[in-house]
């Protein structure tokens, strides 16, 4: 088992957006990479449209929760998640936010936005905001920042193929959504339309 990797990611949104689903995809991707993993989830009443927050810790950890100021990254499915949960981030962390407009991040945080709702409409899969943001996050971390995520794009696809093995249509839709998010970032790079606040890196 690889003991050196330690990554902590916060995933934030509201009940019904599929925060739990993408948390599970990432956690299972960690397992196929031979890494230990911990997640902590919100269940119960908050799942009825209230604020939900997942903690994902990859590597050797004892506690399921991330301490404020310790997270390497944030996936925010709502524009205001940055204000609400940005305090979890380290000073050199990344954040990807589903938002039509730029978001204000703390100094040093690299915040990237994508209008995932619009893209979801375009691929006729309005519920796929979560997967689009996940694809976008993988692209941001691997292509824009000189950082590496504990897993690659292909690992997440492998997990999806495993989970949705008997549901061909759902699998195809899910893969398309992740690709849409991933390509969404490449298009932003092309048009130099990405939004970084704090630091410019290219």
């Amino acid at each position: 088992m690889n003991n050196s990797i330690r990554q902590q990611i916060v995933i934030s949104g509201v009940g019904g957006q599929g925060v739990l689903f993408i948390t599970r995809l990432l956690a299972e991707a960690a397992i196929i990479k031979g890494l230990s993993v911990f997640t902590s989830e919100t269940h119960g009443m908050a799942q009825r449209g209230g604020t939900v927050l997942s903690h994902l810790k990859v590597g050797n950890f004892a506690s399921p929760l991330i301490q404020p100021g310790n997270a390497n990254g944030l996936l925010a499915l709502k524009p205001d998640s940055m204000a609400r949960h940005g305090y979890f981030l380290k000073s050199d962390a990344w954040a990807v936010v589903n938002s039509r407009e730029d978001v204000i991040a703390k100094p040093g945080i690299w915040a990237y936005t994508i209008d995932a709702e619009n893209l979801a409409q375009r691929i006729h899969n309005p519920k796929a905001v979560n997967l689009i943001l996940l694809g976008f996050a993988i692209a941001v971390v691997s292509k824009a920042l000189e950082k590496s995520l504990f897993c690659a794009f292909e690992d997440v696809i492998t997990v999806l193929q495993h989970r949705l093995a008997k549901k061909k249509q759902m699998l195809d839709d899910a893969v398309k959504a992740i690709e849409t998010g991933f390509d969404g970032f490449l298009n932003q790079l092309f048009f130099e339309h990405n939004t970084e606040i704090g630091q410019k890196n290219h």
Partner: protein
Amino acid sequence: MSKRTLMLGNEAIAQGLMESCCMMATSYPGTPASEILSTFAALQKKRSDKRHIQWAVNEKVAFEIAYTGSMAGLRTAVSMKQVGLNVASDPLMSAAYLGVKGGFVVISADDPGPHSSQTEQDSRLMAMMARIPVLDPDSPRQAKEMVATAFELSEAFKIPVMLRPTTRVCHARQDIEPGSVPSCKPEVDFQKEPTRWAATPKFRFHLHQELEKKLNDVSRYSKTAPVRLNIEAKASSALIASGVAAAHAKEVLEDLNLWQVIPMYQVLQPFPLHQEFISHMINTYDEILVLEETTGVIEMQLADRSRVKGKLSHSVPMVGELLPETIRKIVGEFAGIGTERMDIPSEPGVRPTLCAGCPHRAAFFAVKKAAPKGIYPSDIGCYTLGLNLGAVDTVLCMGAAVSQAAGFYHAYKNEEKRPDIVATIGDSTFFHAGIPALVDAVVQNVRFVLVILDNRTTAMTGNQPTPAMGIGAVGESLTSVDIERVVEGSGVGFCRVGDPYDLKEFISLLKEAVKYSRENGPAVVISRHPCLLDRFRKETPTRQPVKVEVADTCDGCAFCIQHFECPALVFNETEEQVRIDPILCNGCGVCISVCPKKSIKEVKDA
């Protein structure tokens, strides 16, 4: 691919039950415990051996069934949330005296925070009160291991054993390698022993003596003794932690470079605390910090108050979850090193709401129309969110809507002007604890309306079946119990069924019920429409979704948003009009009748 799989804490507990040859498991759903039984049932589907797995009508019944399985020699378990244990506390206290034959594990999941409960109560105090041992896991993996330990402990001392996970164990996921499930061939053999199983008070005295002796022995049982985690650390002060607080504390000690400095002990069995451990701690250390959730159970068993820091000394907060950042601050202070202050913004979260198209919303709107100045007692479930519509005035505990309606009636009955009282209760909650209260209301001729929100499922906790559905935990067919017949059998003179989607008719039905209740006594209206999320829903939808739009006559009064509160109704600030969010709208069409200006209209396809 690795054999390790990602397991939710509750799934790990279910896997542990399966590996330990638990032959009977019962439960009533409640966050954070619900997935234990559903996972156990799912695991059973893949097996050929026979087990009894069931959702019971309430936790008391669940407890009594599983406990009796243990009397007959089987390994059994009952799972519930902490407030469920209140309901099951009667058999718990007695079962502790009587003891067990097959191993019997009571899983009571606590919810420090609280995240999804009416209290933060500590089930370990219930174990103390009942005088049974309790195990406190720090992670899904340890929870699974502790299931096996709990059965061994239960059988070694013939005593019920409690496993007390918390939300952060139940709803954490971890990579866990499942063990193998042996082929289980238990012997069912109830041996009559009336002086035990039907003990009279005289024998109860002896059973109590026996219980205290068992506990004394349990407090010397080596397998559940506290563990010293960092042998290398030497200091005159030490840290004791249990449950998920221990998991946080391990990371905090490492982060603060204190792992090799402060000796840390993890307590696995907070009650009864091991006697040797108590003497060792008191004889070895000048200062001892105790971290545990939610009450100071370990702390109060450490006799020397002058040396122990914890909740009783106000070094640790008495209220709320012990988050890692809180533990960091406490441990930093204890070690005499400063920790940097964290600024955590107090951004209000988004409040939860009933789903778009939820039949409860229509029912609540109708309640307010039928009794605009009424008092609205309600109950535990999704429909607690009727709060957002101003249609829920009280929420106490399971089943209390009915008895609280009675309480209000009796309080006001001698007044000149009596308010109308309209109580709401879910179908599952009605079965759980509403029926005795309804019988009482009939006897006392309480003049109120009870609206049973019958969505054919236990929705809040993940759509477990209710007694009315005729479906079991493993998907088997069962007998169904008819709500109307229960109501009529209780002696209620007015019992009618309506569909809240037919809003106008439903409001008139409720008005009729209110009128009846003023003059005659209890009236019941069953508001029947299946939950939108229900995966067991068998009925084919009889109505097609209605496509709705807001006409330009909308003057932006926002009555619909304020009083109907559907998430699909959105106020457009620039146009100062209401719009329908087409992604969220499920086409129930109820809002057409809600708009006072008749500006929400059905769109007919040309």
